[in-house]
């Protein structure tokens, strides 16, 4: 699928780093903001705050950039309230494969606009976004419940309670939540976009008994809360730092929750399996809410039915061992095997998984055929390409995952050193 070697005698592709595209303008009448395509989330938060206490939905990792984030999805704690980051986009300026610079919105170049909102990397380079903003929420509560493990199996019932709680269709959109399972145990945490008094009325305490530690922090200022998100334990370890990384994901639709028996099997698997590293996380992130108000085919983003996502990742030192890869692949297998009728999990395109046999189909699902048609018109030479980008219409369906080049590893370096 991917062959960069031998292209015109030059290896690799051309990377366009957008770091200099930092313009920012807030229209104080419409409260739409123009945002340069190279803006990182931390800067975005700050600039919107300074321009009139405005905000938009996005993820928690401050070093992530809007260019990728807001064009493949962009989920974060406030997504249940406001939608995915891409749901804020009203217009873009985009550089196309034929090097034209065009603007795209619902009313002009609408096909491109549709494709950019979910799959921009295959279609062009967004140099400027025009986004809808929201007033910053007032008082918010960040809560966390931690559980230490004697055995993971003892945590299964807590996880079942969480799934039951978050899958209630009447659950308030102000409630964001994630479960992190890690070497030390399990943490249920999230933000309540409302006052402490309102939060207390939810009686979250009683939903998750057996916690070792319970913390709530009340934030009256938005920047404080967003800063706190970045303190998330998993982000602290992996956020801005390049690492040897292995990651898997699964998407869960509201109609198909994980059966209790499968949850039991998952947690006893965690007790049993050799993990090969101490640095691993299995994260279940609640989604739904406003993201799911939008029709599946209204944007190319294709997970309007997702209730929550699983993302697992492990960090190795000098490479990720096959034991670790087996461990996380096994997590997905245990869950899938426990849900035999469920085939179409799909994969959130922000959790890129190069081992997927047909990545594009899992990322864009029912929207893939239309994306392929637009691709063939807008980028017929497939200039904007990566191993799992939208293929041109008529491309044979892949039968195996793209080949991942092997890194040499520490031993290889050592041998190479001896040879030279």
């Amino acid at each position, binding site marked *: 699928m991917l062959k960069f070697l031998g292209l015109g005698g030059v290896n690799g592709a*051309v990377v366009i780093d957008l770091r200099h*595209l930092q313009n920012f303008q807030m229209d104080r009448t419409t409260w739409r903001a123009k945002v340069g395509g190279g803006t990182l989330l931390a800067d975005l938060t700050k600039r919107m705050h300074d321009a009139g206490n405005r905000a938009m939905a996005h993820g928690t990792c401050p070093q992530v950039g809007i260019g*990728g984030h807001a064009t493949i999805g962009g989920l974060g704690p406030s997504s249940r309230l406001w939608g995915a980051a891409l749901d804020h986009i009203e217009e873009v300026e985009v*550089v196309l494969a034929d090097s034209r610079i065009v603007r795209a919105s619902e009313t002009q170049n609408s096909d491109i606009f549709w494709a950019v909102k979910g799959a921009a990397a295959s279609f062009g*380079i967004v140099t400027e976004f025009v986004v809808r903003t929201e007033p910053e929420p007032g008082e918010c509560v960040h809560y966390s419940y931690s559980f230490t493990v004697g055995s993971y199996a003892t945590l299964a019932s807590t996880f079942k309670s969480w799934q039951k709680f978050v899958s209630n269709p009447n659950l308030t959109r102000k409630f964001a939540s994630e479960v992190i399972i890690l070497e030390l145990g399990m943490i249920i945490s999230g933000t309540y976009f409302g006052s402490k008094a309102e939060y207390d009325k939810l009686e979250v305490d009683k939903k998750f008994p057996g916690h070792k530690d319970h913390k709530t922090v009340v934030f009256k200022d938005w920047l404080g809360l967003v800063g706190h998100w970045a303190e998330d334990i998993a982000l602290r370890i992996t956020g801005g730092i390049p690492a*040897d990384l292995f990651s898997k994901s699964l998407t869960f639709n509201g109609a198909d929750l994980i059966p209790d028996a499968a949850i039991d099997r998952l947690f006893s698997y965690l007790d049993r399996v050799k993990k090969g590293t101490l640095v691993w996380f299995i994260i279940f992130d609640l989604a739904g809410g406003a993201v799911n108000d939008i029709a599946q085919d209204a944007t190319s983003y294709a997970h309007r039915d997702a209730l929550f996502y699983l993302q697992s990742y492990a960090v190795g*030192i000098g490479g990720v061992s096959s034991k670790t890869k087996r461990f996380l692949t096994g997590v997905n297998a245990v869950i899938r095997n426990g849900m035999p009728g469920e085939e179409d999990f799909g994969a959130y395109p922000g959790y890129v998984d190069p081992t997927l046999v047909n990545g594009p189909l899992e990322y864009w699902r029912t929207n893939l055929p239309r994306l392929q048609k637009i691709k063939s018109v807008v980028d017929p030479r497939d200039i904007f390409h990566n191993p799992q980008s939208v293929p041109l219409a008529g491309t044979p369906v892949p039968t195996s995952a793209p080949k991942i*080049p092997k890194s040499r590893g520490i031993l290889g370096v050592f041998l190479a050193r001896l040879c030279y």
Partner: protein
Amino acid sequence: MPLILDSGVSLSWGPSGDRGYGCGSRSPCQFVSLGTGRACMYVLLHEQLDTWRTDRRFISLEITNLAWNFPTYKCDACHVFLVLFSPLGPGVGISMGSSQSTPLENGIKVALGGDDKLYAFPSKFGYQLEDVRPYNLTIPVKPAAVTYPKTSTQVAAIVKVAADNGLKVQSRCGGHSYANYCRSRLPSV
């Protein structure tokens, strides 16, 4: 802890920070620390060794310094130094080499008005650490060029140069692709 090489170039490195400048010379150098830095070092070495293997200008390598328990390799053809600590330790390297431009490189230079802060090519020392900056170190990437345009017009000009040279293009913002997609990938040589 500064280290003086026989050329008079001084390097230093420290336990904190995953990247930085510690070089007293006119050339850039990177220091990397233990932990994540170890992997950074690997990427650096990987690139350098590949270059040596494929580039005939690198004729001979000799060990110029065996002090401190880590050999210093010097390539006398183009003045590349590579200081290797133990395979498990940090690494430091500098380069004063240069290379010839390709049509792609010339095109990119023109597209960016000749401002050499706005582009980098594989021949640049520290290309992997400074410019490619792979997020997932298990997947090696080696793009043909990394560019830093300042305007949409420059972005468009680079797209044109790449397309004219038959190359793929990927943009990068925060650079957090778990599979390094915003850098392009390359099968192992």
